[in-house]
């Protein structure tokens, strides 16, 4: 089948050969795969505009048990399914391998970087802070290596005060590193941490339905999953539309 012009342009952009052309290419369609990385959840990709934008810092935030990890793993599964390499900077070493395998993540394509966590931190706040700083350094190294399809910084269970104590220039520096690349950066946390100008924030919360006010589904003797509402927040004023979506998580056999 001959290549369509739009496909050829997409391939040239992907390999950064478009600068060799004598005529300028049209601007990227936001729905183009080169511009966005689909999350793997069709109901979520639509309000996201095709997926999370590449070359930007985006966030998935929400309280505990709001589906952050499920979305994170689904996005990683979609990325590895496309043949991309994924790096996960697990600041507090809470990644569950079985959950990732159940979500469809190709584990061979996942670089898992585990933060140092002590068995009983007690009242020592510095332990979490050191773990976060080390995780930021590892995150920086991964971005410097470049060409990862998806890089995730998972600080979902880090105390908010530890996140706030990080210098604000940290996020500016990371944004600059990822700009213009094909890497999609995802920050997972309890609160918004940082988001680049063209990135977006996905706020999750358990979705209340009828019988269960908190969107948590229990069957007869089995926990069945969560029902989550996702709200998309964009930074750009002209696109400040708070689109929402809902999805359900289902417990697989291993969970």
């Amino acid at each position: 089948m001959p290549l369509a012009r739009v496909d050829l342009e997409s391939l040239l952009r992907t390999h950064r050969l478009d600068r060799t052309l004598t005529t300028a290419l049209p601007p990227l369609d936001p729905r183009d795969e080169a511009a966005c990385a689909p999350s793997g959840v069709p109901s979520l990709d639509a309000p996201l505009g095709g997926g999370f934008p590449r070359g930007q810092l985006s966030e998935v935030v929400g309280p505990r048990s709001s589906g952050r990890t499920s979305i994170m793993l689904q996005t990683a599964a979609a990325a590895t399914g496309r043949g991309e390499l994924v790096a996960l900077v697990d600041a507090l070493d809470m990644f569950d391998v079985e959950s990732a395998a159940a979500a469809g993540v190709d584990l061979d394509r996942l670089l898992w970087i585990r933060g140092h966590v002590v068995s009983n931190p007690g009242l020592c706040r510095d332990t979490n802070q050191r773990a976060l700083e080390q995780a930021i350094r590892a995150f920086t190294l991964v971005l410097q290596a470049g060409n990862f399809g998806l890089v995730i910084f998972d600080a979902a269970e880090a105390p908010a005060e530890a996140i706030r104590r990080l210098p604000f220039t940290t996020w500016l520096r990371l944004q600059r590193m990822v700009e213009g690349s094909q890497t999609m950066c995802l920050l997972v946390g309890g609160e918004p941490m940082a988001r680049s100008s063209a990135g977006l924030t996905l706020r999750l919360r358990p979705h209340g339905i009828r019988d269960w006010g908190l969107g948590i589904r229990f069957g007869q003797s089995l926990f069945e999953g969560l029902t989550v509402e996702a709200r998309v927040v964009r930074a750009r004023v002209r696109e400040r539309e708070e689109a929402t979506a809902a999805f359900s998580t289902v417990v697989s056999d291993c969970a």
Partner: protein
Amino acid sequence: MPDLANPSNPQSLTPNPSTHPLYACLYLPPGSDQPASSSSTLIDIAQQFSPRYERHRDDVVSVDVSGLERLLGPGRVIGEELRREATARGVRLHVAIAGTRMAALLLALARPGLTIVEPGGEAEALAPIAVGILATLNSQVSTFSAERSELSLETLQRWGLRTLGELTSLPAADLVARFGRPAMTWQAIARGEDIGPLVPTLESERFESSLDLEWPIEGLEPLSFVLTRLLEPLSTRLERRDRGAAVLHILLRLVTRDASGTGWEEHARRLQLPTPMRDVRTLRTLALLDLESHPPASAIDRVRIVIDPTPGRVLQHTLFARAQPTPEQLSTLVARLGALLGQDRFGAPALVDTYRPGAFAMAAFKTDHDESNRSRLRAEGASASLAEARGQRSRAEAGERGDRRENIFSALSADSAVNCFEQQAPSPQPLVSSALRRCRYPVPARVVVAEGRPVRVTTDRRGFAGGAVTCCAGPWRTSGDWWAGLAGAGQAGQAGQAGRAGRETPEVRSVPPVQPIPPIQPLWNRDEWDVALNDGAVYRIFQDRVTDAWFIDAIVD
């Protein structure tokens, strides 16, 4: 009148020894009196006479002696010199000198002693040789042995052919009609014609470079300049040979004496590279990162680098594969992460064949995904990936235009999002696998149990405030590795069975104060519960059936 007998005369009828090729073949016949190291002796003899030689087998070597006549004399003198050299080394050789490599080879195999054939007389010299000599040529000697099977020597012998001369006298067209094109090759061999060029056997080249420093250096920064200076010529040589570095040896001679007191202490590091590479910056970075983790004890006054070469990687770039980190970039990243976190804190996760909750293994992260990408592309087809890209775009477009039957909450503008969210009932949603966040060290918890079910969960850990249980599911009893033989394992375990609540007593009871973190034990025996607390969090908790202690094992998120 021109002197036609003068070889230097361009019109001379006598072949000019300086322009006509001349080959020698050395054959070591089998014999009990030949020394064990004869095969290497052949190479040594050949190297004495010419740098261009080809080792066919351990007992057969062809040497290009073209031009040696100007130094030693005619072919007979060269042959005698070869035999004299062999005798001095204690071996007896068959030596043949001819104008073609193939003729010299066949003559050395067929005739003992020294055989000299003037250039141009190869076919005549080979004619009396038995046709069965072709069977002695194996794949290492003849590049056409693969075709030999198509030309049956038995058939030739049934025809009454006994010698190579009789084979060459057959009409080529008829022979080809019966046996195909390989017959022409065999006739050419029988005439002593060279089918292919001599492929010189190269000595194993050593990629090594060293530098003695005028004054000792300390620290990695000055060492970085020295490493660059040593690696650059090595990289160039590797590139010329189409080789990459498989192992990098760094040998640093220190200024302190070694244990014996007679020599200098040496700090040696060996880097096994994940993929063949020859980029100077990458090699230097990897070396420095390794030395950063394993620094020398004192100042350095000599630096030596040795590279174990390996064939270079063959890369074929394609427009259809997404750009990925190169093996060099990944190797550098892996080295940097190792220096930052330690070698055991990163890698590719792997599942373990066990029912132990949260079990996992760490494998080394591959630095070369080219092969898996290629196989993936072959499986899918480049057109399929383009079709997928088109399909995603069309799905996104369809979602935007409103495939509203399928998902009423998707792709809504700000005008309608909130209203729709409030008004519409949830329709069947695409399923997302529920994930857990594991507490690598389970958090000790206090659990209040009523009627065999947990009703309240609290902890002393910051960030795990706990609360009343709004809903729960369980218990799920799981155990294993009790056969590991630890004392107190006690009860046999059954994995993953739903059963009654673990506690027999119906009254409300509280668990004793928080137990210390359990040490990592090979066996486990627990009752697991999924509990939802009133703060909206869902946890997986378990009660250890040996100690009766409760722990938070994971967070459902």
